[in-house]
């Protein structure tokens, strides 16, 4: 719990820092990859409201786009990020890499996660070769799972 609070606090600082530096960041932000219309990322497993064991496999579906490892600049592709107990950051910045933002940079379409008992939120966000979300972001709804 403490580490979560700490991470949340860190996230808050980062957010504040970003808001402070917003005009510069916007100016420096690299051009974002366009997302094809209709592109959608979603959970095969788990689904919203599901009770899951502490260790489970998150399976990821992607509609209208392809998967490519990080660093591979191909149109209409990206790689998955699993956001755990966190909100997505600013869409024109690279997705951070920490315990709450799991990068699937080798093009994985599933990942085994271990979470402490209790309620957790999961969200999927596609990033391009530079880990930057597409325009508009290809993002799943945030779901809640109950780890028992």
């Amino acid at each position: 719990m403490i580490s979560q609070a700490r991470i949340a606090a860190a996230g808050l600082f980062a957010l504040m820092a970003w808001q402070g530096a917003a005009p510069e960041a916007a100016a420096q932000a690299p051009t974002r990859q366009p997302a094809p219309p209709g592109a959608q990322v979603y959970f095969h497993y788990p689904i919203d409201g599901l009770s899951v064991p502490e260790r489970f496999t998150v399976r990821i579906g992607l509609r209208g786009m392809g998967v490519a490892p990080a660093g591979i600049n191909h149109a209409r592709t990206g790689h998955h990020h699993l956001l755990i107990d966190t909100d997505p950051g600013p869409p024109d910045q690279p997705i951070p890499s920490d315990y709450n933002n799991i990068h699937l940079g080798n093009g994985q379409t599933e990942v085994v996660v271990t979470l402490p008992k209790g309620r957790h939120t999961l969200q999927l966000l596609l990033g391009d070769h530079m880990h930057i979300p597409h325009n508009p972001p290809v993002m799943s709804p945030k779901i809640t799972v109950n780890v028992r």
Partner: protein
Amino acid sequence: MLRLTQAFLLAVLAVAIPFAEASAQERARQRSPAPATTRLSFVGLADKAQVPAKLTVRFAISGMEVLPAGQAARNAGHHHLLIDTELPPLDQPIPSDFNHIHFGGGQTEAEIALTPGRHTLQLLFADHNHVPHDPPIVSERITVEVPATAAEKPRSAAAPGARVFFIDLQDGATIPSRAKIRFGTEGITVTPAGTTSANGGHHHLLVDTELPALDREIPSDFNHLHFGRGQTEVELSLPPGEHTLQLLLGDHEHVPHDPPVVSPRIRVRVVADGQTAVAASPSPHAHGAGRARTASPNDAAVYFVYPRDGDRIYPTSTIRFGLRNMGVAPAGVAKPNTGHHHLLVDTEPPSFGEPIPADLNHIHLGGGQTEYKLTLPNGRHTLQLLLADENHVPHDPPVISERITVIVAPGGPHARRRR
């Protein structure tokens, strides 16, 4: 040095002579006493029972203790199973051979394999030196029968022209002690063990051994190497000298086909290192020849998220793919442990040594897609997933899913089952 050994031997003899004299008088080993009330029997195995060819035999002893061989103790010993043989001399150690099976680890059960027909089984207890007790602790001698039909398994059929062969390796070739042996097939497809398919099987490499029985599972040991994941090559380490190699295809249950798909038995000479002249001329039409295949991790697997085997689906359905322990990369991207999906519709898996063909039956998902909207006519169809590398060549071992059957109906999963 030599003198020292002689002196030592003499000393040993001097010590040993009194014992030798003592035992020579009897010409028999000292037998351990046993209580008269001890009973030894089989558990759950009656005389004249019908048994399968492979069975587990359990032993029960009352009044004595089971100890591993070598541990001397009063009223203790270990089991011996006598198959198709009379009692051995009771004042000698029990022989150790196929008819006299020792359980020197203190085991109280064993899995044995019997050929079809009648067999006799008998238990004989013996002390730490494998010598039966006095009086001998012996079970009733029972007769069991293995029915001839029990061993007969329906063997998978193979196409008449199917054959299996070594690639770039001829009879009499000289190979290094660590050599890559490659297998080719023609007229039959390579499918992993456990996957049932018409006219498909997986390789077995027989090293320095005769053909095994063709009506049952190919044994799995150092002489019978299984390639159950559909591998088509192996890095083989052999000691220098003459060896024989032979390929034998087995079906999903490791049973050879009918007729068996077997290569000629070739003789190779293994040399320690250096000069190896692989008598080779690459055969251009051989499956699996030529192209280097990308390695895949051992635990990689591709599977259908939707649909599942036997599902009824709509004519236009989104087929969803899952991939374990590997990543997806678009075609043309060379990155270890990645590949892109191919959806095989109503077709056998293609040759793994060549790029997957691109046609209506082999759908390439070269953009890194992990699902595909497929439209199919009504009726039964088969679907299978096959991952391939940046050049569309399947990995080694191939990452291939089970071949599933779906029923396409206008109402999809809600369609009425026709009576």
